[in-house]
């Protein structure tokens, strides 16, 4: 194994930028790390090169543990996105730099330099200065420079990101050819999925610091295991259906599974994926090959060169939830993305507004992860009450549950966990118990880092408090349920939202939970008192109507309320008047410093709500994202002075 990464972790401002990443790259393999911006892939590359520090984990290059070695001694070749050529040296001097350091004699240096220039397609340009070259040429020089001293491993950090599309494709081919010729073990980082597919022998997809899936591109494209990978690698049609004995049920349709089924867990729900090229369109139901999803109307069609892309809207299927393509808020349609060859398009032309029968050739089923809960307790009476509430909701939601206990001597903990297990263990897909020493904040944060959760349930009394709640809102994507005391029933839920994108996420998650609880919901929006613009009111009402429709689709009876006045007062008034069992709020958006604070209205409401649980929902618009802006305003992870 050329490159081995073991549990690599790096934290910035307390949050994991790279979260326990392990992978192995074989000799001569072209490995691509793919992910959106901020997923940590560049950081991992820099950690391998020694340009960024490591908090935890090990790196082995050709069996050598290089974790503590400076970049000079690791023997890696690194190609940067912005070339990083030495401007005051000629092309030839740039390439020969690594050779000079290794005291290679001048004649040998010249020979090697010419050889490399030939290899990258820049023969004869040795005397030029970097500023006289185009971007693509400069990157070729950078590549030659990195290869000159025959490094053990070649690392490329989005090397073609700053170049035109045509140059990019040229350079991709050049790089692939060179890599094969030299048999060089390579790690390539990119956010461009097309580039990843073209170059990779194997692909690793990352998101928010975690390595999600590994495998050959075709494998990940056709058989992804997670929702993120399915939607990130190309366009996906993703629905939630039911698993049956021998196949998958999507609404009224049944798809028998032909391929050997991956072991789908005991949960009855599955995510069903089919790609646009698996969709068949026909003018009549009989002409359709394969099971029909329904008859739909063309929303738009796009010409994309070698194929045609069509989006159709079909009537909703019962008990089928659409995950991708994303449905507009409040709509109940089923959207399908299809792609057709120009031949097919000619045979059966479709314009927006036309109707067509939609069928699916084949599907792939992913295990639907369901919800995962983290319940925290320290054995005190109030914590136990919170545990009971959390356990009840977990049972109703059929969620995988982890109980974390802390700050107690080990044998007490064991007893505690045993009791908890007995109390709520039955009826859960999985129950894990963990114990941690140390203060609650550290213990809880470390647990959320170890594994992503959908919901963290906390007691509101000391030693927990606003600080811990605030900390939990900085990182990860988990929602928060703050429980002040025991709660026997969940029949009515009050959801406070503001019109806008984050509000949609609030409604969606609250709705999911309410459905599990079998509760009714009321959507409440509070507009500022006196002089609320007619436009704002209209927008709010429209938003709430869409919200009520969405909740209805999820199976939750709902109604909408608009109030004007002070937010805190109105919420309190409505809570007491309406006899609600739970309050749902959206987490505050992050301020300019990147921290979401509970100092404002949300914090006040939480403090005031001493007799009902409060659910704080995170919108992915407010997701905690580590900013790496250095002291002089530039993104920099070079911590030591070279």
């Amino acid at each position: 194994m050329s490159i081995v990464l073991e549990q690599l972790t790096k934290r910035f401002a307390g949050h994991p930028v790279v979260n326990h990443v392990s992978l192995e790259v074989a000799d001569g393999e072209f490995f691509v790390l793919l992910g959106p911006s901020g997923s940590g892939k560049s950081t991992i590359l820099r950690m391998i090169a020694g340009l960024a520090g490591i908090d935890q984990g090990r790196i082995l290059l050709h069996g050598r543990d290089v974790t503590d070695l400076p970049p000079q001694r690791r023997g890696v070749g690194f190609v940067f996105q912005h070339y990083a050529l030495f401007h005051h040296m000629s092309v030839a001097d740039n390439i020969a730099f690594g050779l000079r350091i290794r005291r290679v004699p001048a004649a040998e240096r010249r020979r090697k330099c010419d050889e490399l220039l030939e290899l990258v397609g820049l023969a004869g340009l040795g005397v030029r200065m970097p500023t006289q070259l185009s971007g693509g040429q400069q990157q070729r020089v950078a590549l030659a420079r990195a290869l000159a001293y025959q490094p053990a491993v070649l690392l490329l950090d989005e090397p073609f990101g700053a170049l035109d599309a045509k140059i990019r494709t040229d350079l991709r081919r050049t790089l692939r050819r060179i890599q094969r010729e030299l048999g060089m073990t390579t790690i390539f980082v990119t956010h461009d999925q097309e580039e990843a597919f073209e170059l990779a022998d194997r692909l690793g997809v990352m998101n928010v610091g975690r390595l999600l899936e590994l495998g050959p591109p075709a494998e990940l494209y056709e058989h992804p295991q997670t929702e993120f990978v399915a939607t990130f690698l190309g366009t996906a049609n993703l629905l939630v259906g039911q698993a049956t004995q021998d196949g998958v049920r999507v609404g009224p349709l049944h798809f028998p599974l032909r391929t050997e089924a991956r072991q789908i867990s005991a949960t009855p729900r599955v995510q069903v994926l089919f790609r646009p090229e698996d969709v068949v369109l026909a003018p009549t139901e009989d002409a359709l090959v394969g099971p029909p999803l329904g008859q739909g109307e063309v929303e738009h069609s796009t010409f994309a060169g070698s194929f045609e892309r069509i989006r159709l809207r079909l009537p909703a299927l019962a008990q089928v939830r659409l995950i991708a393509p994303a449905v507009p808020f409040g709509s109940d349609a089923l959207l399908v993305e299809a792609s057709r060859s120009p031949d097919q398009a000619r045979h059966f032309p479709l314009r927006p507004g036309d109707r067509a029968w939609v069928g699916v050739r084949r599907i792939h089923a992913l295990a639907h992860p369901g919800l995962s809960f983290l319940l925290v307790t320290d054995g005190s009476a109030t914590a136990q009450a919170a545990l009971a509430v959390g356990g009840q909701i977990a049972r109703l939601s059929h969620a995988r549950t982890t109980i974390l206990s802390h700050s107690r001597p080990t044998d007490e903990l064991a007893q505690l966990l045993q009791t908890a297990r007995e109390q709520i263990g039955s009826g859960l897909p999985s129950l894990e118990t963990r114990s941690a020493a140390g203060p609650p904040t550290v213990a809880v944060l470390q647990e959320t880092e170890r594994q992503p959760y959908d919901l963290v349930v906390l007691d509101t009394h000391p030693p927990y408090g606003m600080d811990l709640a605030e900390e939990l809102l900085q990182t990860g994507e988990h929602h928060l349920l703050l429980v002040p005391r025991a709660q026997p029933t969940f029949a009515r839920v009050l959801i406070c939202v503001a019109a806008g994108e984050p509000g949609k996420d609030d409604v969606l998650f609250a709705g999911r939970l309410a459905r599990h609880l079998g509760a009714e919901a009321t959507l409440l929006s509070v507009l500022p008192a006196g002089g609320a613009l007619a436009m704002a009111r209209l927008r709010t009402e429209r938003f709430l109507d869409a919200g009520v429709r969405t909740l209805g689709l999820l199976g939750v009876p709902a109604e909408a309320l608009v109030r004007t006045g002070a937010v805190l007062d109105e919420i309190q008034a409505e809570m007491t008047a309406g006899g609600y069992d739970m309050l749902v709020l959206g987490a505050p958006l992050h301020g300019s410093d990147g921290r979401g604070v509970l100092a404002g209205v949300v914090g006040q409401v939480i403090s005031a709500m001493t007799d009902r649980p409060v659910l704080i929902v995170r919108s992915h618009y407010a997701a905690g994202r580590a900013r790496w802006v250095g002291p002089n305003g530039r993104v920099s992870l070079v911590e030591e002075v070279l």
Partner: protein
Amino acid sequence: MATIAVSREPDTGRSLPWGRWGVRAGAMTYLAFMLIIPLAVIFQDGLSGGLTGVWQTISERVAWHALVLTLWTSGLMALINALMGLLTAYVLVRYSFPGQALLNAIVDLPFAIPTLVAGVTLVVLYGPQRALGAWFDQTLGLRIIFAPPGIVLALLFVTFPFVVRTVQPVLQSLDREQEEAAATMGAGAWLTFRRVVLPALAVPLISGTLLSFARAIGEFGAIVVVAGNIPLRTQTAAVYVFGEIESQNRRGASAMSVVMLAIAFSLVLLADLLQRRARKGAA
């Protein structure tokens, strides 16, 4: 009625029709009065005896010694300043430590302190009656005050910010990726500094050094206090000129002034040329 094509002038001068010309005229007049006319007069006066007249004046023993002393003390100071200014700039930009902001502000202090005060400070610190001065004198046989070493120290104090401030912004905006690239290729810290960082700093370093040299040639206040006015020993060109003026020898003063001006002028031009070349090269 036929439409007439009206050529519209750019809006900048519309509201103040005399504005554009006024601004230019104002700036040129100010420059002329404050700089050009006095310089022209000095040149005319100093060269009134022709070039031979100038040569006669400065080749006289006292004047010649003053000129040579000025040149070598300023030269030595410039070299030291280049090295230490570079080091200071590097520390201020690349390291972070408590009190850094304060240190950064102090660098500019010599601009604000009267040069006489600078001289007094040095006398207080290194005067022969003081412990430090006495120690230097007795143990090392080195006299600081009223001797050339004092002159160099005074010049170093006064021109301290020049190199630091020209190098600092360039160092600050350097792209670290080049240094990272060098590191991955096996270059240690010193090699990276020599082959990657220093070449990028060459221009600001040299122009900063030239500027400090030019400034040093004309230094008066600090030197008069630190070095006294001993002809053929510690009398620099500027002090010599002062002496000549005091003793009513305007001709001699002008001649020496012309020489000093010529040197300073060419240095400033050279520094400016270098910076212009560098800007063009970077574009």
